[in-house]
């Protein structure tokens, strides 16, 4: 068979048909995909239409369920059931709750906040009371329904709900309840009453009646314990705490309330845990501070030990209390307390110490001291008198300086004598014996430590001048602790602390005089003791994993000496290996500042690392850290950057350490320079630190960091910007729109939530931003991400600030429907929120019957179209498959190549077959040749022919 003109035509026709069918099939498939996309959006539309009754249906189900289950509730029987059980599933799923009680339905009614539920809830409340009254006030029956109905009613900020609650409160038969309280299981009835009180207190319209009612029952607070809390130190129930907070918060001090509270604190039957709760609430309200003082004194007289220790931590902030006016009643009570022989001195002393910083108490110190002396409490009198001196130092720093300077000169004599003693006893490094330390030197060391840490240190030493240097150098003659044996011997002799103290305290003194001669013996001792302590630890864990980017861990058995030395340096200056007094007195910090200038890079690294872990801040330290930011070593620079972590935001820390208020701005400036550092670790550290700084000077960095490459930096920046308040709203909303990371979006949502929760933020952008994030909840852990969004939306709904247009509301509905559908199996608060929001969203989307009908019609049309497309595609596909090529495949080459090429390809194929090459390989080789030849024949040769002479071997043709 040869390829003649007819065959060529047939072949051409075959390929034309096949191409046509192929194109037709692909076209129809594309059309089908498009139609499916259209159908999907129409289906979503349909879901929105059909989901309109979901909230109502859910609500009706809950009402029916509540009604049915309540009717089945046994009368006069205590309902013993957990409200709902928590099922913990480890792994992918977090905990979820399952409904197991009818009361859950009641709670759901409250959560839905549908006003239609109010009459039902009111009826439930009244029914349960009626039942109780008919049973001689036996509230044990249906207590849970009563309580839950009250809770549910409390969700409504409406007059009718308030009226039901008020009625419930008034109709509680007090004699019956009082009688019940005397019984062992009476806490249930009290809990009921608290529930009602709590819900009334939650409402903004609660009135004096409510307040008086609470005051009346204050003495009964001792009974307000959580269920099952039978131990003496049981926890006051959440309801009681809320009731008390509402009672005391933002209220003017009334004699009636004061009287009731004082009576409560004097009542021996009232437990300390209850009073602690009250004290905590009172202490947070400035108007009650005097009352707190009185209550404290009453507690002291009543010998309430645990309460006293609790009070010791309340309001000791000097800045807030130093100028406080003291109630005369309080000072009178204090005098009583000082003279009361029953009250131990220690408790009086604790009380006085708490107040000694007050100016008024300072004035009282002398008469109080005299009163104590008269009462025979001589030790107390002395302590008060002594502390009065300290009080004066607090308020008069100049006097403190004078005192320090005066104290310095005798010390110098002591140290000079100590040095000469040592010289007379022989070598300081004699291993066989250590010199005994006299009590005089011990006292001198203690004083020296105090001086070293006072703000006036430098002045003090400068006043002593060069005269101090020989004395301090004498102190340095004390034995240097070089070996573990040295340390053990000094430890056994009880002199370890002193041996530390002498060289180091003297070294710091010398540093103040710009003399660093003494630092070496101190460092040697510090290193050896720290290394010994490290070696004697039970488990030799790596000392610090992060040092040097995690590359400098201490590993047991490490051969590299230099490596071990680096790790040891870290160990030496690591806080956990430092003696207590070094940490407390900040002496180490002084040393570290000097070491930051050391020529050895390992020492500088260790010093900077240790400083970065220190909590203290001084001007000297800060200036050294700024210099360290320009260090030649990247690790030193990195830790200099890390030093700033958590410090810049803390105004309290800045003020406490006496650092200038311009420091935060300066720190932000130098850290911004570090962001441009040549080393990536330094840059990263600087970004990380700055992203957590909420200082005004850092705003521009934070705004830029919203678009940083690292999600963590973006999330930190969001949190930091959040602290600036609503002025950052536009920036956060804009970045949220482009944000790809779910955690960063959640940070934005949590920020919005915090703003909205704390105060009314009526911004048009908030609700749309929330809806946008709601529609982008990740599949993994959807509840975690949905919660803040749903909560914030709910707050906006409650305040009537949900600023959404029809389109935006429509966008939210599919996601809310999905949440409702996905979380159907579990009873959880999120689903109820979703249902409630769904209802609100539907209210914003008006019903358009014509459009709904056309949607159905459109869907049907689309369905028909899709069916038609499917059939057509199938027919085309089958037709295409049925087409048979009448010639061998290789003949197709005639349509695209000259004859000789077809012949060559055929020859090539035959040769390969003769060589027994695998058919697959032959096909691949031929396909490759065909592709290259297609290019050569149809492109390259045609291009060549453009500049070649025409003609050729025409005769041969």
């Amino acid at each position, binding site marked *: 068979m040869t390829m003649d003109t007819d065959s060529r035509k047939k072949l051409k026709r075959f390929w034309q048909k096949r191409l046509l069918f192929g194109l037709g099939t692909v076209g129809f498939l594309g059309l089908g995909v498009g139609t499916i996309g259209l159908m999907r959006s129409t289906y979503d539309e349909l879901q929105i239409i059909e989901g309109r009754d979901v909230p109502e249906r859910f609500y009706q189900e809950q009402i029916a369920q509540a009604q049915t289950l309540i009717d089945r509730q046994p009368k006069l029987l205590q309902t013993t059931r957990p409200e709902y059980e928590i099922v913990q599933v480890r792994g992918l799923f977090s905990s979820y709750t399952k409904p197991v009680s009818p009361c859950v339905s009641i709670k759901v009614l409250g959560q839905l906040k549908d006003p239609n539920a109010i009459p039902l809830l009111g009826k439930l409340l009244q029914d349960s009371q009626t039942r109780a009254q008919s049973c001689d006030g036996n509230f044990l029956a249906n207590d849970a329904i009563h309580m839950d109905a009250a809770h549910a009613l409390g969700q409504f900020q409406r007059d009718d709900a308030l009226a039901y609650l008020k009625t419930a409160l008034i109709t509680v038969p007090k004699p019956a309840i009082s009688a019940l309280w005397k019984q062992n299981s009476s806490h249930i009835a009290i809990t009921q009453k608290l529930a009602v009180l709590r819900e009334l207190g939650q409402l903004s319209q609660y009135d004096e009646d409510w307040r008086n009612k609470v005051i009346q029952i204050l003495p009964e607070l001792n009974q307000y314990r959580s269920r099952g809390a039978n131990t003496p130190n049981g926890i006051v129930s959440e309801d009681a705490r809320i009731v008390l907070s509402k009672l005391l918060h933002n209220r003017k001090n009334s004699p009636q309330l004061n009287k009731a509270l004082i009576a409560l604190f004097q009542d021996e039957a009232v437990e300390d845990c209850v009073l602690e709760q009250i004290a905590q609430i009172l202490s947070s309200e400035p108007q009650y501070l005097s009352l707190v003082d009185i209550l404290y004194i009453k507690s002291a007289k009543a010998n309430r030990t645990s309460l006293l220790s609790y009070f010791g931590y309340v309001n000791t902030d000097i800045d807030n209390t130093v100028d406080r006016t003291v109630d005369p009643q309080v000072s009178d009570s204090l005098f009583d307390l000082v003279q009361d022989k029953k009250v131990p001195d220690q408790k009086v002393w604790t009380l006085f110490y708490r107040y000694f910083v007050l100016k008024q108490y300072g004035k009282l110190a002398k008469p109080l001291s005299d009163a104590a002396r008269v009462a025979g409490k001589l030790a107390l009198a002395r302590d008060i008198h002594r502390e009065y001196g300290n009080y004066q130092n607090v308020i008069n720093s100049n006097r403190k300086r004078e005192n320090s300077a005066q104290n310095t000169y005798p010390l110098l004599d002591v140290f000079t004598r100590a040095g000469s003693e040592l010289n007379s006893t022989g070598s300081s490094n004699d291993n066989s014996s250590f010199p005994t330390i006299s009590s005089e030197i011990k006292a001198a060391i203690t004083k020296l430590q105090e001086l070293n840490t006072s703000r006036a240190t430098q002045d003090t030493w400068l006043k002593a001048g060069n005269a101090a240097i020989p004395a301090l150098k004498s102190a340095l003659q004390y034995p240097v602790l070089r070996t573990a044996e040295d340390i053990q011997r000094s430890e056994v002799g009880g002199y370890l602390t002193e041996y530390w103290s002498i060289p180091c305290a003297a070294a710091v003194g010398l540093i103040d005089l710009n003399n660093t001669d003494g630092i070496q013996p101190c460092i040697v001792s510090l290193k050896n003791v720290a290394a010994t302590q490290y070696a004697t630890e039970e488990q030799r864990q790596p000392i610090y994993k992060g040092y040097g980017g995690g590359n400098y861990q201490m590993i047991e058995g490490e051969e590299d000496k230099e490596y071990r030395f680096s790790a040891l340096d870290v160990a030496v200056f690591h806080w956990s290996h430092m003696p207590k007094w070094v940490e407390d007195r900040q002496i180490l910090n002084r040393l570290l500042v000097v070491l930051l200038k050391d020529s050895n890079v390992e020492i500088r690294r260790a010093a900077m690392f240790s400083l970065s872990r220190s909590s203290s801040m001084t001007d000297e330290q800060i200036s050294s850290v700024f210099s360290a930011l320009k260090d030649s070593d990247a690790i030193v620079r990195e830790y200099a950057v890390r030093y700033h972590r958590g410090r810049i935001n803390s105004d309290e820390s800045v003020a406490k350490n006496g650092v200038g208020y311009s420091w935060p701005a300066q720190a932000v400036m130098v850290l911004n320079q570090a962001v441009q550092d040549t080393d990536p670790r330094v840059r990263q550290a600087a970004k990380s630190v700055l992203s957590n700084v909420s200082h005004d000077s850092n705003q521009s960095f934070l705004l830029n960091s919203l678009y940083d490459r690292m999600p963590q930096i973006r999330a930190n920046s969001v949190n930091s910007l959040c602290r600036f308040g609503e002025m950052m709203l536009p920036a956060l909303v804009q970045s949220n729109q482009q944000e790809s990371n779910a955690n960063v979006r959640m940070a934005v949502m949590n920020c919005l939530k915090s703003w909205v929760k704390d105060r009314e933020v009526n911004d048009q952008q908030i609700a749309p931003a929330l809806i946008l994030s709601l529609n982008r909840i990740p599949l993994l852990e959807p509840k975690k991400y949905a919660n803040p969004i749903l909560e914030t939306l709910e707050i906006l709904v409650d305040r009537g600030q949900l600023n959404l247009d029809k389109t935006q509301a429509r966008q939210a509905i599919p996601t809310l429907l999905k949440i409702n559908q996905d979380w159907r199996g579990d009873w959880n608060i999120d689903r109820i929120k979703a249902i409630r929001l769904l209802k609100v969203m539907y209210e914003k989307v008006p019903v358009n019957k014509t459009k709904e009908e056309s949607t159905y019609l459109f869907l049907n049309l689309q369905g028909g179209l899709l069916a038609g497309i499917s059939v057509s595609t199938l027919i085309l596909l089958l037709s295409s498959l049925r087409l048979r090529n009448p010639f061998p495949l290789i003949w197709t080459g005639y349509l695209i190549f000259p004859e000789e090429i077809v012949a060559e390809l055929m020859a090539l194929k035959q040769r390969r077959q003769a060589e027994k090459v695998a058919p697959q390989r032959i096909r691949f080789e031929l396909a490759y040749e065909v592709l290259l*030849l297609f290019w050569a*024949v149809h492109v390259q040769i045609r291009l060549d022919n453009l500049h070649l002479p025409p003609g050729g071997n025409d005769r041969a043709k």
Partner: protein
Amino acid sequence: MPKRETDDELETVRLSAIDEDILTVLLGREFYGLEILDELNPGRPIQLRFSSLYPALNRLEKKGMVSWRWGDAIDESGGARRKYYKVTGLGATTLRSIQTYRMSLAQRAVYQSI
């Protein structure tokens, strides 16, 4: 590129390395495509394919360096015939002149180095 100063007709003729190789193979012989590749490829650093051969043959044909004739049809190919190529007189002359030029170039280099 060789340049003959004495012959104006050949002054414009330019040959690539592949063209030269093909002319060398076909000098005094007659081959079809696959055979030319068989002759050229053994020992060649970069193997030639049909896609390089046919454009080169087209160039040589257009320049009058090679001529061809139809051969017999190949089995199972629907009557497709091979083309057998051979060098024309012009092709042989051009090739020889290039080879002579190269030889003289090599000799000059040898004398200068001595």
